[in-house]
């Protein structure tokens, strides 16, 4: 922890200088608090306002924009969940995201393990190739992928979308996980080999559990990223019944320009926001440490 304010020499502290120091400290901290509180307040207000609006009627929203709803009514949610099919989209999303997530971790962790801990000819190049995808704009892949997916008959299907999500998530996941595996002490492996573990057992029973903080971090990142993803889904999903939640919300927001049903849209926004915000509230520290993991060498 850095702490820069305790610099005065101890023997000269008088009552007056304590007061002066206090005032000085406050003068120094006030601008900070002012900016930080305002910035945070804006974000918090935006989220809470959206939630409040989702319980109003349209008439109430436009007459009393900034007030709290007078009655708590779940009509908007019931309508969004059933009539506008957000419920269906919710489960489409849940299915694609969760299944992809499990597979991403299951296949990326071994890659990260090998490339961060086993030295062999070309291991460095392989790591470079596996993470190069971070820099490749996803749009470059659209038309070739569309072509491949059409040939494989997995266009316009949640399986196809899942496969894309898995493939597109590999570079970043390998990148994060190599950071975690790389930081584990080498003695552990040596000791377990001496104890008679096979290479595979060392990975499965010793190293993988030790890297679980990394796995959790990678899982949160991928969950949030894929849950919110709509660009790839927009290209590869055309069937309205197969929409993921962001895609459903996108079409709802487009329809809103004709229906004017703002509060219905707000309910949809809350439905998509709540899972990631909840996850973030519980695990924000872990997530933030994950960003800094690969990018900032400890």
């Amino acid at each position, binding site marked *: 922890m*850095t702490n*820069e*304010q305790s*610099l005065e020499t101890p023997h000269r502290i008088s009552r007056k200088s304590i007061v002066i120091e206090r005032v000085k400290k406050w003068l*120094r*901290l006030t*601008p*900070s608090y002012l*900016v*930080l509180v305002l*910035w945070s307040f804006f974000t*918090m207000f935006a989220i809470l306002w959206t939630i409040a609006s989702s319980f109003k009627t349209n008439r109430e*929203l436009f007459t009393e924009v900034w007030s709290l709803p007078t009655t708590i009514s779940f009509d908007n949610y019931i309508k969004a969940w059933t009539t506008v099919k957000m419920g269906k989209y919710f489960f489409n999303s849940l299915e694609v995201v969760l299944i992809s997530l499990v597979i991403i971790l299951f*296949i990326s962790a*071994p*890659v990260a393990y090998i*490339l961060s801990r*086993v030295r062999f000819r070309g291991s460095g190049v*392989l790591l470079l190739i*596996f993470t190069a*995808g*971070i*820099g490749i*704009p*996803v*749009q*470059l*892949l*659209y*038309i*070739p992928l569309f*072509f*491949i997916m*059409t040939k494989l008959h997995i266009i316009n299907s949640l399986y196809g979308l899942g*496969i*894309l999500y898995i*493939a*597109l998530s*590999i570079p970043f996941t390998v990148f994060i996980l190599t950071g975690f595996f790389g930081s584990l002490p080498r003695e552990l492996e040596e000791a377990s080999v001496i104890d008679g573990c*096979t*290479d595979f057992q060392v990975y499965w029973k010793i190293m993988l559990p030790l890297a679980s903080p990394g796995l959790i971090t990678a899982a949160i990142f991928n969950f949030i990223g894929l849950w*919110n993803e*709509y*660009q790839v889904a927009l*290209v590869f999903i055309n069937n309205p019944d197969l929409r993921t*939640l962001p895609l459903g*919300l*996108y079409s709802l*927001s487009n329809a809103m320009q004709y229906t004017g049903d*703002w509060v219905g849209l707000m309910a949809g*926004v809350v439905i*998509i*926001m709540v899972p990631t*915000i909840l996850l973030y509230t519980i695990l*924000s*520290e872990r997530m933030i440490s994950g*960003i*800094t993991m690969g*990018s*900032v060498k400890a």
Partner: protein
Amino acid sequence: MKVRTRMIVLFLLPAGILYLFFFLVPAAWAFYFSVFDWSGFGEAKVFIGLGNYAELMKDSLFIKSFGNTMRILLIGGIVTFILAFLLTILINVGVRGKKFFRAMIFMPNVIATIALTTLWAFIYNPKFGLLNAILTKLGFVELGKTLWTASDKVFYSMLVALIWIQVGFMVVLLMAGRDKIPFEYYEAAKIEGANAFQMFRKITVPLMWDVITVATVLWSIFALKVFEFPYAFFGIQPPIQIYTVGIYLYIMGFGKRDPIYRLGYATAIGVVLLLAVIVVIVVLQRLMRREVHEY
């Protein structure tokens, strides 16, 4: 040793195959597709060499999109960096609840783009919007009647919202770099009589240089491929004022309401985008190369 080799292959294979066929092969194929005139997935491809690229150089909409992307990269990048640095400094002078503020600033990054665009649509709403309401309350009655999504303002309105999101990401990176600097350095500098600006210039920036470099590269990659936020910012059809290269590629490849399917052309845009990423990263690495400070 044999067992080792088998394990290496086994561990790399599943991810390797998926990554190869659904990432690397399509990326390589894009270069091939980009030299054809190809007007639909069922249609025949006609080889036209660099024809698509030549056309791009003359396509005013592409040039507009490319310009917008560059404005996001440069103007957006500079503003995001300044704000993020400012917040990082403010958060580090000894306020309570450092982690809380950091978490709040990062928050927009976990919310779906499409939810954020809805929110900003309401902030900018000319009649009921938050922005105009505040301006009117503050006495700027005329300014409070502005249509922020009018065609001459929509780009910067969009950029402000985009910056608000990305600052959070940048703050997290910069704070991590800042926290690594031993606090004795600042103590020593203070005893020597350095002021805050001198300390920032002589200690903070040089010692955070690696983090700043990483953050700049990440920002550039993000800015060049930005699609979702501007695309959804305006509702059904993004106006050309907020076209980015990514959006233009999508529209050329798949169309707006009516399909366009200029597949070869769209792929050529993707290739240009990739080249832009490579050029920017190489240039940045040249520009930002400095000796690494060990501490």
